[in-house]
């Protein structure tokens, strides 16, 4: 059964976060007839730093460098498409990245937008980068924000989860957040949940919800 053609917009900026987004698409979302639109946007940052009486030569050099960098990126994106046998195109548009991505998705009638949770931005105090934040809030189509844990364990999916022990509940609730978090990861203290019938889980979760870790903002990326 042939799948209908879906237009998938993937926002890439060359950072490894956006790499993850692309890889996620390849291994989890891709279907045969997808048309992939890789969107890269750049803000002419060097123009923004123009001071009064700036050296015109230096400025034009900076602009040239940026243009070259963009070209190289676009080339690598095109390579990505051909290497992976994808049908699609690369768009390199200037402007605010979030707005550009949403605009392209809207104009091209995309079916989905895929983006990383962060990009090149250096501000780490927020949960999510400004671009993905913008996209999530302004998109008219489903958005996939590819976040990933710092330490991703592949083998955990099939582990049996031990029942929560009563005495542990009290010790866990007083331990500092960071320590709790790693303990929870290593040693899942939640009810055994691989059964299909979950009539008891509500009560168990209610008990455990008061003792499970509170989110630590700095770590939750």
């Amino acid at each position, binding site marked *: *059964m042939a*799948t209908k053609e*879906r237009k998938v917009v993937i926002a890439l900026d060359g950072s490894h976060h956006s790499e993850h987004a692309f890889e*996620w698409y*390849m*291994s*989890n*979302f*891709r*279907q*045969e007839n997808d048309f992939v639109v890789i969107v890269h946007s750049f803000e002419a940052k060097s123009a923004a730093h123009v001071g009064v009486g700036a050296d015109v030569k230096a400025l034009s050099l900076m602009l040239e460098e940026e243009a070259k960098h963009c070209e190289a990126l676009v080339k690598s994106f095109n390579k990505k498409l051909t290497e992976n046998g994808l049908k699609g195109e690369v768009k390199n548009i200037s402007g605010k990245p979030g707005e550009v991505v949403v605009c392209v998705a809207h104009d091209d009638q995309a*079916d*989905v937008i895929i983006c990383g949770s962060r990009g090149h931005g250096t501000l780490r105090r927020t*949960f*999510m980068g400004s671009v993905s934040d913008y996209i*999530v*809030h*302004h*998109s*008219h*189509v*489903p*958005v*996939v*924000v*590819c*976040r*990933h*844990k710092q330490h991703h*364990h592949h083998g*955990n*999916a099939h582990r049996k*989860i031990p029942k929560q022990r009563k005495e542990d509940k009290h010790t866990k609730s007083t331990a500092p957040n960071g320590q709790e978090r790693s303990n*929870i*990861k290593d040693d*899942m203290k*939640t009810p055994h*949940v691989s*059964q*299909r*019938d*979950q009539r008891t*889980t*509500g009560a168990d*979760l*209610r008990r*455990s*919800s*008061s003792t*499970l*870790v509170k*989110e630590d903002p700095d770590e*939750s*990326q």
Partner: protein
Amino acid sequence: MASAGSGGGGGEGGGHKVVIAMDGSQHSNNAFQWYIDNVHRSDNKVILVHCPEYRSLTNAPYLTCDPDKMSELARKEESNIKLLVARLREDIDKYGINGFTVRAAGKPGEAIIKLAQAENATMIVIGSRGLGTLRRTFMGSVSDYVTHHTTCPVIIVRQTDAVNE
């Protein structure tokens, strides 16, 4: 049986644990449907989580008055919730997917994140809005919370139709 799995790339990306947030709203139903149509693969395990907010109890104007009325409201809420969870189970059977339902407690956003972490989910699917009535924001409070606190890829299913605008 709905099938969206493709031949290419299926091997490396399989075996996902997907947490789908369901609150009984049209948005969450759309999110579930979108997931089935676009993302679901047969080796994915799906967890449908419902975290009731007890709106009729917390928003009721007669909170301090008649205890009988309160218990009647509570009973009604409870039966609605049970109906919803039963419907979720039906959906699982209808689409023949490997999964189960969970009824969580507490604040919906936090409950979803805790569940996803406890289950080592590799994906969360959530509608951009739910049962909430405030339309002045772009996104509902629960999906906003989940998007910002998740540690795995999250899919926010927003659709432009009369429901959203």
